[in-house]
């Protein structure tokens, strides 16, 4: 695996930060390659916009910042407006359905518009598992980590008693994307 730079963006409450950590752990611990994770801080990151950055690579990751992500997930229009223009040429852009992306960007990237939050609400009755649906779809599309690694990483991080609903959300994420791909 070449260095792959992934940005997950949305708003607080969607579990974006935890999602990023799980993805990074899947790579670092269970797939035994290298990974870093970063998030945004400060008042702007509380209650409002939320961002999670993951780099996955076989090589040691020295420089940990992402300027032009290979993969971007944007769960809100605001996030999409802010970050979609930064996606690399031919990169992957995953958005929640309803999020609009202009043609200029569409031409440049591989766009996947998926009903992520809708699916999350369907699975759990609330947006609480949005992150897992997202991760499922992301990994299905990018294969950036193995599905087993992702599942193991997820289990090690979620609260006891929520295994089933999270597992289901993850599976639905995979399904959403596989249906598309």
């Amino acid at each position, binding site marked *: 695996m070449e260095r792959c730079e992934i940005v997950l963006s949305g708003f607080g409450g969607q579990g974006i930060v935890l999602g990023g*950590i799980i993805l*990074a752990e899947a790579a*670092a611990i269970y797939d035994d390659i290298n990974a*870093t*994770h*970063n998030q945004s801080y400060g008042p702007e990151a509380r209650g409002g916009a939320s961002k999670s950055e993951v780099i996955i690579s076989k090589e040691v990751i020295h*420089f940990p910042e992402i300027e032009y992500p290979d993969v971007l997930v944007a769960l809100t229009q605001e996030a999409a407006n802010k970050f979609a223009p930064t996606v690399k040429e031919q990169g992957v852009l995953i958005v929640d359905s309803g999020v609009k992306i202009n043609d200029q960007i569409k031409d440049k990237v591989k766009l996947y518009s998926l009903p992520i939050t809708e699916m999350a609400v369907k699975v759990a009755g609330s947006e609480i598992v949005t992150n897992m649906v997202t991760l499922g779809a992301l990994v299905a599309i990018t294969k950036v980590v193995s599905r087993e690694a992702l599942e193991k990483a997820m289990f090690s991080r979620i609260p006891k008693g929520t295994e089933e609903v999270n597992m289901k959300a993850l599976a639905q994420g995979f399904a959403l994307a596989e249906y598309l791909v």
Partner: protein
Amino acid sequence: MKRQVKLLQGNEACAMAAVAAGVRFFAGYPITPATEIAEILAQELPKVGGTFIQMEDEIASMAAVIGASIGGVKGLTATSGPGFTLKQENLGYAAMVQVPCVIVNVQRGGPSTGMPTLPAQMDVMQARWGTHGDHPIIVLCPSTVYEYYMLTIKAVNFSEMLRMPVIILSDAVVGHLREKVVLPDISEIEIVERKKATVPPEEFLPFKPDADDVPPFVSYGKGYRYHMTSNNYDEGGYPATNNHQVADKLLRRLHNKIEKRRGEIVMTEEIMMDDAEVAIFAYGCTARSAYSAVETARAQGLKVGLIKALTLWPFPREVVEKYGDKVQAVIVPEMNMGQLVGEVERALKDKKAGVRPLNRFDGKMITPEQIVSAVKEVK
């Protein structure tokens, strides 16, 4: 605990290492980007019988940590710029009275409250010179989460071994980054405990040093009653405020504690320096960019190497000097307006190599590309 593979945040690694090194007291005050260290220790210390307290400010936090250390327990505090400034007076106290303790400064952008969530390396000179009076200090600086863990243990060890405060200078990048680390088994890590008294109370002089210039540090309340003061003091621990000879001797000894152990304290890594024509001298998060720059430059056939400093103070002048006539130039990238570059210049006073600062102070990391360009400018 066995050798473990983990995805750890830098500040988390620091907190875990503190517990592993035997730290059992933390006093602090919230500040971004250091707060995680407090938060984790608030949770972890009670589990191992230790104490966490959030004090009314950073001055009190530093005081409490020193008080706890005087009580016989290893203590640590963590903060960032503004709090680091407020801790300086008591840091000087610890240096003078020779009380071990560790201060972590997770650097963020200044001046003043500047850019509180963004990284910087602006407190490098302050870490050396921030308090009044003249005393030496040890400052360690991690560039990876793994180093953050290992240097935290080193810091606690140096501090206990030498009876002095030790500073860890990390930054918002290394503090907040989560990355993969492989931690050694705890049994493989050397943990240092402070020296005990070797004479009975009647013969005991609290500041009579051993051959290594370090006096044993004896806990109060066990029969060794004595005094300590931050005024110039004699071997009995009593003020000798106007005694010139005593002052001269004491200050020399404070310096010698470090100088005598330079070999052990000064830690650097030399990466691809063997045939290097240009050296990059870097530390902290900037060393990550530099490493990446070296790889890129080498791939382009440029003979570039990296001197990564893990110890900032005492400054690793011997390592820099060594290359002074071998390389054409030393590039010093720093996330400030030029701080440690001055020490590089001093070290190279009578050497051929030129010195090239590369500075950025806008809250963003220096990129590998910026460094590669700087290398090309030399050639």
